[in-house]
Each structure stands twice: as C-alpha cells, then as structure tokens.
C-alpha cells in the first residue's frame, strides 16, 4: 500500500525539521515552509518519511494512503491552477 506525505498548512509553523530529515521529498521555500514532492513515498524512503512525520514539532506532517482525496489535496490544487479551475470537492463556496 503506497502512502503519500500530507501537510496540514494551518498547523505548520515552518520549523523545518522535516526538510532536514527527508531532503529527497521535502524542500523549504524562501519563507521556510515545506514544499512536498507530489506522489507516493518511494518504498526505500518510507522509514525516513515516518521519522520526519514523528519529528515535526507541530504534528503538521502525516502519511496518508496515496490516491485518497486527503493526500491528493496539493496535487489537486496544483493541477487546478495549471489547467484552469475545475469542479473539485466544494471547498470555497457552495
């Protein structure tokens, strides 16, 4: 079962521990907030990913089953931006 990293941007305070522990998948933007690589976590990095999740002081990082709507949040919004707005789950206004 492949899992993907999921970030809670409200909880994230930009500590940056995750990027140090998992530089293959997480980098920091110019404001210190993490940018996650999309897609599932490769099998070889799973252990390191779990360690990064445990190390977050704000408990903002989590591993979710890839392909579920949860982990696909950032992918979905990124593709929304590229291809123009699309009818995703009602988030902004209903």
């Amino acid at each position, binding site marked *: 079962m492949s899992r993907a990293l999921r970030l809670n941007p409200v909880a994230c305070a930009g500590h940056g521990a995750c990027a140090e522990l998992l530089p293959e998948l997480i980098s920091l933007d110019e404001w210190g907030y993490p940018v996650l690589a999309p897609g599932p976590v490769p099998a070889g990095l799973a252990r390191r990913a779990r360690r990064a999740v445990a190390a977050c002081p704000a408990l903002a990082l989590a591993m979710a089953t890839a392909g579920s709507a949860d982990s696909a949040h950032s992918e979905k919004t990124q593709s929304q931006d590229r*291809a123009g707005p699309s009818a995703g*789950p009602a988030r902004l*206004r209903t």
Partner: protein
Amino acid sequence: MTVTSPAGPVPPGLSARPPGPALPRLLPPGGRPGGLAGHLAVLGPLPYRGGPGRLIADVAASGLTGRGGAAFPVARKLAAVAAGRRPVVVGNGAESEPLSGKDAALLRAAPHLVLDGLQLAAEAVGACRAILAVHPGGYAGGALTGALAQRQAAGLDRVPVELAEATGGFLTGQETALVSALNGGLGRPAFTPPRVSERGVGGHPTLVQNVETLSHLALIARYGAAWFRSVGTGAEPGSMLATAWQADGRAAVTEATLGTPLGRLLDLRGPVQAVLVGGYHGTWLPAGQAAGLALSNASLHPAGAAAGAGVLAALPAGRCGLAETARVTRYLALASSGQCGPCLNGLPRIAAGLAELAGARPRPTVIHDLERWAGLTSGRGACHHPDGTVRFVRSALVTFAAETAAHAAGWCTAPGAAPFLLVPADQTAASGGRR
C-alpha cells in the same frame, strides 16, 4: 401509472401539474407577491417526499451542481451527508464575494423558495437541524424572520430554521470557515480532512449549500429532473443567476441558462477593454475573447476561466486594469486568515508587487518576483483563497500585458481614473462568531 407533463415525467405522488416555468425560474419579474400564500398559490404545496433520501435520485437525474462557485454535483453531496448520523443542513447566503448580489436578491425576492429548498434538503439527508446563514445586514429588515414566522404559523417547516449572520470578511462564506463560525469559533477556514460532510456543525455531518442551489432544488422537487434539464446544455443543465456589472457601473442580477453567450449578459459593444469572469477569484479575459465565450464551464475552461458564482464585470476603456487589479489584490491579501505560511507570506508580497507595477516606473524585477511568489503561493494553503487570488493576478498580467509594458515605460493609459471594481471599505480579515 406514471403521470407525464409536457416537461417530462412528474415525480411520483404529485398529480399532473401545469408545466414548470420557463425562464425566469427563480426570480420572476414582479416577484411572487403575497408572502407565503402567494408563493404557495403559484408553485403549489411544498412537496415533501415522505422520507430521507428519496429526493436524491431526482437531483442526480437533474444534474444540478452547486451554485456557490465550486459547481460540485449536489446529489453526491446529499448522499455523502445522508450517510452520516444526525446531519445538519446549512443554507449558505453569506455571499462574501463583494461583486456578487444574487444571493441577496434571492433572499429578498424569493425567501420562501430558499426556505423550501432548505426543508427539502433537510428531509433528503435526514437532518433535524437547519441553519440559514446570511450576509451581515441580510436579515433584510426582518423580512426573513417574518417569512419564517409565516411558515411556522402554517406548520410548513418540519425542521426549525435558525438564522445566523455571517461577518463580512471575504472568506466567511467558505464552507469550513462558515462552519467554524457557526460552532462559535473564529470563522477561519480549516484544513480538511475531516470535511464538513463528515464533521461540521456541532461535530455532525453537515450539508452546506448555496441558497441558489437550494432554490433550484425546491423547483426540481416540484417539476422534476426533466424540466430542469429542459434548458441549458447536456453537460451543464439548467439555469443560474448571474451578477453582471456593465461598463457604466450599473449592476444587475439576471437569470440565464447555462450556455448563454456572455455578450448577452454584458454589453460588450461599447468601449470595454476586458471582462472579469468569476469574481475576485476569477479570470480576466480580453473583451474580444470574452465576446466569443458563453456562460458555461465547457466554454470557459479552455480559456482558463470558470462560471463560478456567475459574477461578470466589464472593465471599460479609460481605466487602468493594473490599478484595479492591484486594489482588489490588496483587499484579498488583507482577507487572508493568516493561518498558512505560504498565503500569509505570498499574498501581501504579491499585493505590494502589483501596487508597484500599477504605479510609476516599477522595477524590472517586480514581474519576475510576482511570478515566483505566485508559484509559491498557489495550492499551498488550507483553502483555495491563495489559488483563486493567484489565478486572478496571473490573468491580469496576461490580459493587461500592454498596460504593464506602458507602465514599465513610464506612462499609464488612465492615470488618475476613479476606481471601478467594488472593494469593501472594511478590510479586516475574516473573524468570528455568530450573532
């Protein structure tokens, strides 16, 4: 025996009725005077189906999508919430988009239609609690409370309706922000999961639907899915309310079928330079391009736009598109709830950069900074506020490229022009509570 009317099969349990109204459906001219009695005289009794879940099939057949901006299939939402325990239904009339006036118009002119829809939705999901959230001042001088009192007296409402007044911030109409405010919280958007359809008001599964969507629901329950589909396109059936701002500054709420050419809603013959489609989270399009498009996602998506909540604004020539965009972006930056790092950092920088771009002699690096910040901000918040703002800004940079070049060269096509787009004076971010 199925009873058929000219508009298609009539839902079971109802005798043959006169065919449902052609356009306009939601806001007939002259309204439906006579309060509740007048409403029922024209539309007939409130067609309760006698149990949860029965309306959902009709809604699915009708293809009704949400009219609050995201166009999510209503039947899917109903089904998701109906599956939960003790759900709550919320009618979203907060209308926090400054350019939109359709929800206010609906609540003023056809409150009983909205309230019918609220009751039917509550029955469909099995809710025992219903809340109607309105814009500040949206109690409309007691008109809504009066309407509710009439329904109470007539014993029409099976679920008691609570009225709630949203605060005026731009994000207060956002689904999770609204639920947070109804729960007595700060009214700021929340990270999902859990979605409000799983855990919302009071921790219960919550259905949040725009008041226009509920109005369509009330009519579909009476006239059936086939009637709803009799206008519009195959993929996007039905009609929607649009708020159209003309180049002379006048605005009107019109009902249009999906697929109506934009040229019929906006007067694009005069000196119009650009059209804003979709409000402040929407897309700027050159007037010429907009004239060839229609009010449907099938037509607008390839152009990078979306119908959204039906907000259309024509920017006349003689205004500076960059200055307008900069003013609005400043408002959008202030509207950020400041919870997510990328949004809190990115939007103010984008706003300041746009202000410089719209001013005299911007530095040549500003455009590159704007592009970088846009890329870093979009898609990285808990809600779609940063995404929508970036879409708005990027489309402005494309549509007003000539103006950008002029500013870089040191002149503006419309220096000192009066502001055109409406930006509320009270620019505090979304903040709490329910009154």
